[in-house]
């Protein structure tokens, strides 16, 4: 039983990593309707910014944290301007965005390898790595922090999207850029805000990831997991992204713990497909009958 509880804790901890990454990804998806594969690159750069600020410039954690978020947000904006905006202007189909995004992610990964170098970097210790133990269970401090930060940023995000005017404009633009423009929405701004926010979340995710694990050019790779988690939870739904992530984390740990770690991903994928067969729009995705 203690083993089981520990595995659940492990799952929650991995899940909250996926969740932080998935939220930013899902946000951009919900507006632009394409999978922003450059998000992994943004997360990675966020992690590096945080690392350098802490390790080389010895900044206080909160400053570094804010700057990593801001830097990644800025990067996301630049990517939007350079790689997507020209496509948007020409009304290219979403697949072209995906390719451009892949180009950007290849670029980001390799520019880091070529300049900073391929070796992984270790964050200086900010929080004690001593886990909090309750009986025979142990929870990492950083895990708790990540959990809290994901929850807070999600709550803020949902509030912004659902309750504010800019949120409404974001949702409107998500459906139709043209109609929103006719309503007086500066759609260019809205899209930039979305990318900025997505990048900001990515930067935060990257920095926390870096603190928990390490920083290296291939961090972006792990975002495939959060991509899967977002689909699992229902694309475009922010709470779905979080729930999908946490579930994926738990499924993965329980599979490794009780079934087979060799075939963990196989089993996780099989489960994913079963879920999608039963609920083709993911767990929290809205299923709307197509209206003719």
């Amino acid at each position: 039983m203690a083993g089981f509880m520990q595995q659940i804790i492990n799952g929650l901890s991995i899940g909250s990593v996926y969740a932080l990454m998935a939220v930013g990804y899902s946000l951009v998806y919900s507006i632009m309707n394409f999978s922003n594969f450059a998000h992994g690159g943004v997360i990675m750069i966020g992690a590096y910014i945080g690392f350098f600020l802490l390790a080389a410039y010895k900044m206080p954690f909160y400053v570094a944290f804010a700057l990593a978020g801001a830097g990644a947000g800025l990067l996301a904006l630049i990517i939007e301007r350079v790689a997507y905006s020209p496509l948007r202007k020409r009304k290219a189909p979403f697949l072209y965005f995906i390719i451009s995004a892949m180009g950007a992610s290849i670029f980001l990964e390799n520019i880091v390898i070529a300049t900073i170098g391929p070796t992984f970097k270790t964050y200086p210790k900010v929080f004690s790595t001593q886990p909090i133990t309750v009986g025979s269970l142990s929870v990492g401090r950083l895990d708790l922090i990540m959990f809290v930060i994901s929850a807070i940023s999600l709550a803020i995000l949902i509030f912004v999207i659902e309750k504010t005017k800019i949120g409404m404009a974001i949702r409107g633009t998500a459906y139709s850029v043209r109609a929103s423009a006719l309503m007086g929405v500066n759609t260019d701004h809205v899209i930039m805000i979305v990318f900025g926010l997505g990048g900001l979340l990515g930067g935060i995710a990257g920095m926390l990831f870096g603190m928990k694990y390490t920083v290296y050019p291939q961090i972006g790779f792990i975002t495939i997991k959060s991509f899967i988690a977002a689909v699992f939870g229902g694309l475009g739904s922010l709470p779905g992204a979080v729930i999908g992530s946490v579930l994926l984390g738990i499924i993965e740990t329980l599979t490794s713990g009780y079934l087979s770690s060799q075939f963990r991903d196989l089993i996780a994928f099989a489960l994913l497909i079963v879920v999608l067969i039963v609920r083709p729009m993911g767990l929290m995705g809205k299923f709307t009958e197509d209206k003719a």
Partner: protein
Amino acid sequence: MNILEFNNVTKQFGGLTAVGNVDFQVAKDSIFGLIGPNGAGKTTIFNLITGIYHVTEGEILFEGKRINGLQPYQIAQLGITRTFQNIRLFKKLTIYENILTACHENGNYGIFDAILRNGKYKKQERIMHEKTQTLMEIMGLEDRKDIIAANLPYGWQRRLEIARALASNPKLLLLDEPAAGMNPDETLKLMTLIHEIRKQFKVTMIVIEHHMDLIMGVCDKIMVLNFGQKLAEGTAQEIQENKKVIEAYLGEEEMHC
């Protein structure tokens, strides 16, 4: 003989009953009008017939056979097809390609025939191209053959939708507001076209329209829906004189002039 029968059909969306206990029959070779206020459930009835929505209760018979529960394509293959209120063309294809694609049931050959380009393929393709050509002529689209569907003005898009629907040789054709976006003159031409289609293709039609001239001018029988319920049914004359219909749908003014 009835080609289509609705027996006590109900469709609910959550708490909303879009179609409630509706019964009606459509006689073969007739033109059946379906009218009613906005949101009365007319399009929903089309969606139920074509299998895009599933009925909540009741049954739909086509040529005496129950069709609810079938897939849309199966229903189409039985001989029911439609146009859409919100136009759904193959946007990036040309007019010709739109119709040619819809002609797919007119020629019969397998994948291997296609790969080998054998005689069968060639012969059947010719049939399909001929059919397309004929349809283009009847619908008056032949000189716009290569225009991409998305770039057509609204009115022509509607025409193309009808042409595409006819391409699959339907026995029952459902037209959802075919005259929307047409001016009175064009609507008049559409009426002629509908008569023409009936003559040439021997197809039964159900027409949803808010242009009363068209409905009154072409329909043998009309059913009026209101809030998902049948309000009245009868000939054009009967419907126009029906107090309830005037009150709920037509409005007074129309009757005075």
